[in-house]
């Protein structure tokens, strides 16, 4: 008996859900195991996680609030991943967005909200976009791997943020804590309904706008089509006259702008000032989300919420069980690894033994042999 592998002719449809849930379950099982290795209750800890993520009164709104930056960053990441351009720099672009927003908030402090807020958003998107264009330009002009350059810019962006907060923008009234002055009321994104809806804020509006724009762009516009086609590689792009260089700049620039937007929203709505703690790894979570969701907008929204909920649950675990925050990285990494392995079964089907022919071929051409096999 041996294993035969066949490429699937038709997609799995609902079977895909089974694959994803299976991978998720295995990943969580591994995490439970690691938890008990650490000395905490394994399955019990996971239950607390789920209770926090989905069971509490604030779970939904907290989860949505956390999902906003993840969703926006993930859209940006997915845009470039579709072209096989590996933008790992969402975290750095997020940081630059926060910086840009802070610059506007502090420079134009006191201005009315309907001017200040758009200025902050614009400034953040510009800063994030430019930060994304750096690896793009290096890739196009010099062939530098965008993976490493965008990643290095993450570290540099974080250090830049720290530098600004520790020195130039430090709030004299902060008693030595690293933070800027609080933004003026015009620069704050308000909560929707502080009592009822918890931490949920108006930044949520950015999500459907960005999501719809993303979906429409990819399916309805010519440029969106050219982007999808460029994912196959530069050779095809040259043959079909696709504007590959322009598209690389576009995806990294827009991706950076989206991450920058997320940075602005997060700084303004959640913190109300700039602190190094604004960087909690949303940029990396976004990469996990984009890949899990196979780069499609609706699954990105669902997955972003799921991973955000996981973070909410993690906070509860932290409080009740003193589980370190790094457990979240373990979960995300494990889930991604298992799902990547599971995605194998979406493209290929495995069976034991040999397949039997259904009917004799007639066409004189042999489909699978063709030119692919010598």
């Amino acid at each position, binding site marked *: 008996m041996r294993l035969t592998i066949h490429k699937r002719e038709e997609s799995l449809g609902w079977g895909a859900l089974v694959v994803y849930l299976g991978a998720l379950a295995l990943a969580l099982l591994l995490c439970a195991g690691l938890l008990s290795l650490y000395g905490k209750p394994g399955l019990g800890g996971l239950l607390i996680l789920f209770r926090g993520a989905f069971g509490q009164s604030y779970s939904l709104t907290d989860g949505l609030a956390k999902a906003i930056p993840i969703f926006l960053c993930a859209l940006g990441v997915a845009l470039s991943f579709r072209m096989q351009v590996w933008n790992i720099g969402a975290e750095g672009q997020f940081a630059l967005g926060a910086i840009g927003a802070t610059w506007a908030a502090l420079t134009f402090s006191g201005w009315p909200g309907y001017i200040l807020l758009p200025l902050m958003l614009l400034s953040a998107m510009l800063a994030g976009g430019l930060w994304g264009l750096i690896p793009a330009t290096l890739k196009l002009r010099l062939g530098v*791997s965008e993976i490493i350059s965008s990643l*290095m810019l993450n570290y540099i962006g974080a250090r830049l943020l720290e530098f600004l907060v520790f020195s130039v923008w430090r709030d004299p009234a902060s008693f030595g804590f690293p933070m800027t002055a609080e933004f003026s009321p015009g620069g704050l994104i308000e909560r929707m309904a502080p009592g009822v809806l918890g931490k949920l804020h108006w930044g949520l509006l950015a999500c459907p706008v960005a999501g719809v724009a993303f979906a429409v762009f990819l399916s309805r516009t010519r440029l969106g089509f050219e982007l999808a086609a460029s994912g196959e590689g530069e050779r095809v792009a040259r043959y079909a006259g696709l504007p590959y260089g322009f598209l690389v700049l576009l995806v990294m620039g827009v991706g950076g702008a989206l991450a920058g937007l997320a940075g602005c929203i997060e700084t303004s709505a959640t913190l109300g000032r700039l602190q190094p703690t604004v960087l909690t790894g949303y940029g990396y979570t976004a990469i996990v989300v984009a890949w899990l969701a196979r780069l499609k907008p609706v699954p990105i929204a669902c997955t972003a919420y799921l991973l955000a909920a996981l973070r909410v649950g993690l906070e509860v675990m932290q409080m009740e069980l003193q589980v*370190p925050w*790094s*457990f*979240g990285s373990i979960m995300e*990494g494990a889930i991604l690894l298992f799902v*990547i*392995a599971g995605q194998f079964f979406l493209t*290929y089907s495995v069976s034991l033994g040999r397949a039997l022919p259904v009917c004799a071929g007639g066409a004189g051409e042999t489909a699978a042999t063709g030119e692919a096999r010598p």
Partner: protein
Amino acid sequence: MSPELVIALLAATVQAGAPILYATLGEMISEKAGVLNLGVEGVMAFASFAGFIVCHMTGSAWLGFFAGGLSGVALCGLHAVVCQVFHGNQVVTGLALAIFGVGLSNFFGTPFEGQSTQGFTPLAVPLLSSLPVLGPVLFRQDLLVYVCYLLPVAVWFFLNRISLGLRLRAAGEMPAAAAAAGLNPRALRILGTVLGGFLCGLGGAYVSLAHMHLWTTGLSGGRGWVAVALVIFAGWRPGRAVIGALLFGGLMAFQLRLQALGTNVPSTLLLMLPYALTVLVLVFSSARAKGAGKEASAAPAALGVNIEPEV
């Protein structure tokens, strides 16, 4: 700067460059076999903890060192399984591994934050260590550094003069040719990934056991990513990896000294230097590659490209 300071700086350069050299050579073996393993940062992070904890519990630095290597094997084994068996995308799998590995090390390391360990101590080589300049710089280091003097040669020898190394290279250049020759390219790639993982793990363990002699979160500090960049910089040649490792070792030693001396330059900006240098190194490599033309591209031809399953 006085000559004593320069010599101390050079000695620190060699010591700081050692873990980077281990990791670069490890990643090089993996890439020569055709596997792009971006998870080196996670591997080094976890290995640095594994090495620390084993040394802490058993009291043996050597056991810790090998534990680091073995943990590298285990994590890279994950990468190998996901990519070679389940046909996973190498880039994303590597990223997942990086996230996972760093998380693992920070998670299990939390109770041990800031604790120190005996680790490895410098061992002067008799006679040679008395040489002027070269003596203190090269021959008053710990044993692991002496091992890494031999490592580039060993790796070169393995890849070019051992039949297994030849087969590994074939799997990285053209898996179809390896298969036609009766070999199993996928198994060879798994071997390459795991072997590379061992060396990367050793590098990680070095950081906690010999370089810093303590454990803290974020100990690997981006060295894993530097290693990936340095493989490109070295043109996939073991000898050239030494130059890159020394470059970064020098920068990190210099950075530390500058901070200790208390300069006006804010520490956060200083901390940016290694990452900026990494980008510069890549820019330099790409510019050089363009100038030399495409005659014989140094990168293994099938790097990062998975082997299609036999349908």
